[in-house]
Each structure stands twice: as structure tokens, then as C-alpha cells.
């Protein structure tokens, strides 16, 4: 077989089942790619030895016919998922020595299905960022980079880069405002943020609890469907996870799009929208139209407030969620002459600049005298944004938009660094979805003139990932995007 790391997960499973390859052989091939691809800085922690041991077990299970859903598939895990006995850092100095004695529910689900873990993937510190540049462990390089090193997007930058560079068969990600979809788009991968409550948040280091959701980043739509099937499910340890049956996603991809109404929100086409982005968007709509879908312009009138709403609510929750990193019980500690001093020293040197900025914003918007003007107003706006979608879904079955207004940009880009607002603006198409708790998938639609991937986003009704996968599969078929 040529390069087995280029196969999708579904293809790989077939090859494993047919004994064309072994899991150990497969795992070794990925480990080799990890070593060759170290300059991408996609992994924070590699666990080759552990992975090979898991692969051996997987091979035994294939021998005995006891192979499970993802038996022997080598995955990369975003370093925001707590993994038992494997260092889990959230890409932060403050947790750079933290080894959890417990496993997150999502990664446990994957392990229960026989997956092999290659290591922990780089991300923006505490998932706060859209370029993977805020990581304490340094930026991740987008495998599509040519002369200049480009960002992979963020925060799941390591996940997308590792999938794109075949350094894992698929990866886990988390998405609070676009952290799965944007890096997937920048790196030519497919990623889905499922409905809020579809995956358990237990054991995932929290950024903004009411927005965070786990999901896969993979080579194609079907892989995403398969991975999500394994990751999802009700968990009594997470009171916000929903007790709703998980459909057999990969086997429900054959639906027709004939007669399906695809909403195209006019507010997502502002003046000055990049021409390439706009024309690929039209192209995606045409693919679906040609297959009998009905394209309908819809309105999401509160879209222009989404970014502001998000950048009030997410930091507010983060400021509280990150309070526990205080140097008392675990993680990094900088001593002080009294308790307050210890807190200040620990958190000043333990957190990076972007995290500190968001903690301060969050603290401010919750403060007495400002709460009503910021936090409360943002909560009301969140409700209106949610209502926009619910109204829109009375007229359409699914919504199609670009994932990001831009393609991957150079690491250290001046305009992004000098004003964090410019960075935040990249999330303009993705944050509303988190505010409304909806499922949304990004898949590659083609390359820009300068040869960089562009992504399309499909937004579904609550818990209707099936339709999202279905429509995505059709666009994927027509777009014929060539992976690296």
C-alpha cells in the first residue's frame, strides 16, 4: 500500500478489517509523520510508546474479531481534554506540569471504541485565540504554508494542522466561537461543532461553559460523522449534556437534498466581503441547487451584534472558570509573601497576555455597576440571536455561509497583533452558532488564488447533525477538494 496515512478513517478501518494493514504498522507510520512534521509544532506532548501498546491491543482485537467502532485508529487529542496519566496543559504555563488522574468523557468514549492516542495537540492558550499564536508552547505552522509560515487558525490549530499533515488519522477539537471550524477551514480539513449538549464537557478544561462543545476535525465528512458518533452521548456527569439518542451518523449520509431549502443569510455578505470567498459561497449554493435544493435568502437581523455579544459573554465565563488556576492545589505556583501575593505572582507569570486580557474583560463586564450594561445586555442579545435562527429555520432546513472571511495569514501578522479586535473579527461567521447552541460544520470548498484552502459552513437545526452531514457530503462530492 502506498501512503496509509493518507487514507480516511473509514478507508483505514476497511484496510484494518481486511488485514491489509495492522494497527501497529499504521501507528508507526503516523509516528514517523509526527517526527518528520515536528516543525509544524502541532503536538505539545507525543505518546508514541503508549500509542504502540494500544495499537498492539487493537491488532489482537482484530485477530479475535472483537474489533470496535474505531479499533486501532490513531488519533490526536487537543490538549484541552484531560487524559488520564498524560500531561494536559491547555497550552498554558500554569498547567504545564499537570497530569490528570482522570479521563474526559469524550476521550473515554473514543478509548472505549478502540481508538489509539498519538499525543496531545497544540492550541491557543485555554482555547483563547483564532490563530494558535497564544500557545505557551509556541505557534503551530499551517501545513499549507509555502514561503512564509502561516497560522493554522485557532484555537484547535494543532488538531487541524496534524490532520492536514497526516500526523493523525483524525483529531478532537473544541469550539467556543469557531475553534473547530476556523482551523479546519484554514487547513483544508472538515470539522463539526455539534449541538450544545451533544457531547459531554466533563473533563474538558473549560473556557466558556455555555458555549464550549467538543467535536472532531477529520479528513472528510464521513470521518467526522463516525468520530462524532463515538464522541457524543448523554453523560450524567455533565448537567448540560442532553439525554437524546445519538443517531448512526455515518450510515445516514445517503439522504437526498432534493427539495431541501438552503438558507443564505444576507447579513453574512457585507460590503467588502472578499470576492473569492463570495464566489465560492455562490458555487457551493449552485452545487446544491443543481441537486434539486432550493436556495433561499434569509435574514439573521442581529448578526452585527454577535461578535460584541460573544466577546462579553465568553470572557465573563472565562474569568470565573479560570479562577481556579491559583497555584494552590495543582499546576504552576509562584511563591509570594502572603496569599494575595501568591495569587498575583502565580497568575501574572502563569497566564499569557491574551488570557489575561480576557480575564480582565470578563471581570470588568461582571463588576458591580457594569453588569447590566454589558453582561445582562449581552445575555438579552444572545436570546435575540438565538431567536433569529429559530425564525430562519421556519423558512429553511439548513443555512450555508462561508466559515471565515479570510484565508490563513502569516504567523506574527502585524495588523492582527497590534489590535486584537482584528483577530476577533475573523470569528464573525462562526460565533453566532455558539451563541445559539447550533450544530455547524466546516468543509473545504477549494483553494484561493494564492493556493490556500477556503471553508464553507453549514449550520443546522438543534440536534439535526444528520442533515448537516448529508448536505456537507453532497458539497464535498461536487467540490472535489484535494487534500494534502
Amino acid at each position, binding site marked *: 500500500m502506498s501512503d496509509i496515512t493518507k487514507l480516511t478513517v473509514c478507508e483505514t478501518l476497511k484496510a484494518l478489517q481486511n488485514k491489509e494493514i495492522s494497527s501497529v504498522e499504521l501507528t508507526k507510520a503516523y509516528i514517523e509523520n509526527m517526527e518528520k512534521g515536528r516543525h509544524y509544532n502541532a503536538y505539545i506532548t507525543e505518546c508514541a510508546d503508549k500509542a504502540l501498546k494500544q495499537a498492539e491491543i487493537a491488532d489482537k482485537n482484530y485477530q479475535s474479531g472483537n474489533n470496535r467502532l474505531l479499533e486501532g485508529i490513531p488519533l490526536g487529542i487537543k490538549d484541552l481534554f484531560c487524559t488520564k496519566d498524560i500531561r494536559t496543559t491547555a497550552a498554558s504555563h500554569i498547567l504545564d506540569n499537570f497530569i490528570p488522574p482522570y479521563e474526559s468523557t469524550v476521550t473515554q468514549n473514543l478509548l472505549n471504541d478502540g481508538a489509539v492516542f498519538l499525543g496531545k495537540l497544540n492550541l491557543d492558550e485555554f482555547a483563547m485565540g483564532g490563530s494558535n499564536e497564544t500557545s505557551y508552547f509556541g505557534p503551530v505552522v499551517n501545513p499549507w504554508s509555502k514561503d512564509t509560515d502561516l497560522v493554522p487558525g485557532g484555537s484547535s490549530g494543532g488538531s487541524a494542522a496534524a490532520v492536514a499533515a497526516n500526523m493523525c488519522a483524525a483529531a478532537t477539537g473544541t469550539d467556543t466561537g469557531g475553534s473547530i471550524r476556523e482551523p479546519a477551514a484554514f487547513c483544508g480539513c472538515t470539522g463539526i461543532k455539534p449541538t450544545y449538549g451533544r457531547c459531554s464537557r466533563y473533563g474538558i*478544561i473549560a473556557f466558556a461553559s455555555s458555549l464550549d462543545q467538543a467535536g472532531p476535525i477529520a479528513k472528510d465528512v464521513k470521518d467526522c460523522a463516525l468520530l462524532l458518533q463515538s464522541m457524543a452521548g448523554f453523560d450524567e456527569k455533565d*448537567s448540560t449534556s442532553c439525554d437524546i439518542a445519538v443517531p448512526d451518523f455515518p450510515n445516514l449520509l445517503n439522504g437526498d437534498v432534493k427539495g431541501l431549502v438552503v438558507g443564505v443569510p444576507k447579513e453574512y455578505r457585507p460590503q467588502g466581503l472578499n470576492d473569492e470567498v463570495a464566489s465560492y459561497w455562490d458555487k457551493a449554493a449552485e452545487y446544491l441547487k443543481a441537486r434539486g435544493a432550493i436556495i433561499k435568502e434569509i435574514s439573521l437581523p442581529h448578526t452585527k451584534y454577535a461578535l460584541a455579544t460573544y466577546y462579553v459573554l465568553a470572557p465573563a465565563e472565562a474569568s470565573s472558570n479560570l479562577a481556579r488556576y*491559583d497555584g494552590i492545589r495543582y499546576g504552576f505556583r509562584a511563591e509570594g509573601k502572603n496569599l494575595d501575593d501568591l495569587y498575583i505572582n502565580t497568575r501574572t507569570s502563569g497566564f499569557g497576555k491574551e488570557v489575561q486580557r480576557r480575564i480582565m474583560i470578563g471581570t470588568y463586564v461582571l463588576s458591580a455597576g457594569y453588569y447590566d450594561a454589558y453582561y445582562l445586555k449581552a445575555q438579552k442579545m444572545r436570546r435575540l440571536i438565538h431567536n433569529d435562527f429559530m425564525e430562519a429555520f421556519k423558512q429553511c432546513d439548513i443555512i450555508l455561509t462561508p466559515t471565515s472571511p479570510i484565508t490563513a495569514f502569516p504567523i506574527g501578522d502585524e495588523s492582527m497583533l497590534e489590535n486584537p479586535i482584528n483577530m476577533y473579527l475573523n470569528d464573525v461567521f462562526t460565533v453566532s452558532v455558539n451563541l445559539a447552541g447550533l450544530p455547524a460544520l466546516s468543509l473545504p470548498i477549494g483553494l484561493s488564488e494564492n493556493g490556500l484552502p477556503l471553508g464553507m459552513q453549514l449550520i443546522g437545526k438543534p440536534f439535526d447533525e444528520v442533515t448537516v452531514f448529508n448536505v456537507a457530503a453532497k458539497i464535498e462530492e461536487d467540490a472535489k477538494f484535494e487534500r494534502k
Partner: protein
Amino acid sequence: MADYVIETAKGKWEVVVGLEIHCQIISKSKIFSGASTEFGDEPNTNVSLVDAGMPGMLPTLNKECVHQAVKTGLGLNAKINKYSEFSRKNYFYADMPTDYQITQFRYPIVGEGNICVDLSDGSTKNIGIERMHIEQDAGKSIHDLSPTKSFIDLNRAGVGLMEIVTKPDFRSPEEAGAFLRKLRSILRYLGTCDGNMDEGSMRCDVNVSVRPYGSNEFRTRCEMKNVNSVKFVMQAIENEAKRHIEVYENGGKIEQETRQFDPSTGLTKVMRKKEFAHDYRYFPEPDLPPLILTDEYISAVKDEMIELPDAKKQRFISELGLTSYDATVLCENKETADFFEKAAQSHDAKKVANWMMSDFFAMLNKKHLDITQSPVSAENLGALVELITKEIISGKIAKDVFEIMSETGENPEKIVEEKGLKQVTDTSAIEAIIEKVIADNPDNVAAYKNGKTNLAGWFVGQTLKLSQGKANPQIVNKLVKEKLDN
């Protein structure tokens, strides 16, 4: 009740007091984790990953704590809110592992209610409950084990609390004390909190202000944190009120502040000025959905409710004929009330009450025993009262029998039988004794006949003595007079 007025050379003042009481919920496990709530275990042994605030850990609400809270709310005659929600109260402290406390802020589980308190002059007063919410407790910091280090015990971190907030309805230290005793009694009846202030399972914050007597303004209040006995709460109110009055009368101003009560002096000192007050940045807890209670759930809890002290007291007064005072004392705790009811069953309830209020409680006190450890069982106390009612023994002999019962735990019939203590009511036997007394004391008989009629009592006494107390005193009285007057 006479008004509590503080009089100075310059004027008359009254106090305005409100209480906030933290009550530890009796439950097997903590309010948001599965760890045990056992008190007194080795430090940091009852700590789950959630309690320790580990990364990625999430709270899950313990239904048992909700049940206890609803029960308590009903016991406070309060409105149970079908919609309530949890909030985070953000502040940094070493024994608060997440550096925020999960509590209820805007929407508490229990709304307005009231408790009727009994005052020493026999009057009662209704105290309004503002609200009650549920929240998690913090751990404990131990600062006195090392000169340079502090130690943290997280066993208590995450134990469920009910915080009961009263309206500013108290006008005297006595009312506050009576309220705390009543509240404790209700909680213990319900089994929702053990109410031990000295162990910290019930902790009281006291808000005090004063105003000129008879006015209805509200002046600046000061809050005293964690005052840990009924006596100290009363003392804190008295002394804090005096301090306010002194400041006002010297032309000063009271600043809103948090103060600490020092049990050794009974005085309070500043802990935190208002400008240093925490900004807790409350916001809805995103890890927990709102708590929704159905009508069916609330009515099912109502059906489980037992008779509470006030209802019991009323019943003891109206059906069993007890005095208000005796009924109040006997109802203060459920074990005592149950003991009384058992003892009084088909016996003279008033007599049983008298026995309990006097010899019985005195015996328990002397032996330092709890009522549940009493050597005299309720049935035996009832049987003893029955022997008196049926005039089988006299009240005086009954005291001796009771002595024996409290040593041996024997039943009174057996003691009376074995020791031959049955009262003599046979007139011929008593007559024989009287005749002997008369025959032996001719001088006194003569004196009597000469007009010293009060010597009759002496003859009665001698007769009773000779009968070893067994002669029925009424019969002796009657016969002595008949014999002497003949």
C-alpha cells in the same frame, strides 16, 4: 412583650436586627458531588475531583439536598419557588477550590415565610423570613499549626448549606435568641439540619442597627459574621446596639461594615470596611440548568411533612390540657415530645407533664443524660403516674419509686409489689395505728382537747410515720380528727 428600650441620659433607643443563618444540610453526599459529608474524618479524605476544583470538573446537583431544602421551606411556612437558579459568587480564597461559590442569587428555591417565636412572658411574635437559598460550603483553613504555613482541609468544601435570611423584624436580643431556638427546633424536627452551633453546622450572621424608640426609620447596619451560639448572638446584639447609640449620641456616624464578634469579651471589632467589600460578580452558573420543581413534587414533599412544634404545642394545650409553658418546653425537641406522648398515652397527661418538668428532667440533668438515654422509659413513667392516679401509692412514695426506677430501670408496679409500698386504704388497719399513737401520747391528747387543735397535724404525721408512709394521707386525716374529737 414589653418593649426592649435602651435608655440613656440623652434618650430612648430601640434595636432593629435581622439574621442570616447558614444551616448545613443533612445529606449523605455533598450538594454538587458524590463525596461523603461525614464530619470529623481525617482531613482531605472526603474530597472528590469536583470538590477540589480540578480542571474540567463539573458540578451535578444532589437531589437529596433539594428535597431537604423544600422540606425546610415548608417548615418555615414559606413559598416554594418552582423556578430557581444557581449563580456563581466569585472571590479568591485558599479553601474555596474553584475560587467561586455556587449559590443562588436572583432566584432562590424558597421565598417568603414566617416563624412564630415564644417569648419568656408567654407572648408570641411572628418573625418574617425573607428567603432561603441553597449553596455549597467552603473548606477550612487552619492557620495555627505552623508559623509560616496555612493548611487546608477540603472535607467540608461542597457540603450543602441552606442560607435562611430573616426580615429585620427583631426588636430585642431575646427575640433573636428565641428565634434561633425555634428555628433549630424546626430543623431538628424535620431532620434537615442538626443545628449544632458549636460544631458549625448552624452559623449565624447578625445585622444590627438602632433608631430612636418609636421611630420607623432604618439606619445604617453593621453585620457580625459567624456568631456561634444563641447566647453570643444575644450578647452581640446588646453590645453592638450600645456601641451604635454611643456613636450617635456623640454626634458620630455609623459606617456600614462587617464586624467580628469576640466571644471572650462579648464585644465586636471591625473586620472589613464597606469600601473593601468584595465585588462578588454574581452571574448565572452556566454548568447547571435552572432548577424546576413541579407541583406534584412539592405536594409529595408536603405529604411527608410531620407535625411541627407549633402544631404539636397547640394540640398538647387543647387536647391534653397542658399549660402553654409546659407544652412549649415539651415540644422544643421532637424526642422529648415523643417521649411525653408515649408516657401520657391513656394516663393523666397533665400529671405526666408535671413529672417530666420536675423530677424527670432533674434526674436527666443530674445524670447528664439525653432523653433518648433515659433509664426510665416512657411506658414506666406513665405506669408510675397511673399508680398515683389510682391511689395505689402516694405522691411521696412515688418519688421513692422513681428514685429506684432511675437507678434500675425497673417498672414501677414491680418495685411497689416487691418492696410492699402499696398504700394502706384499709380503715381498720389505719385506725389501729391511730389508736396506738393516741394511747402512747396522753399529754398531747389532753392538750388537743384543751383547744390546741392544730396538734391534729402532729397525730397525722406520727400515724403516717408508723405506717412507713403507706397509709393514705386523706384517710388518716379524716380518722385522726374523728378519734380525737370523740
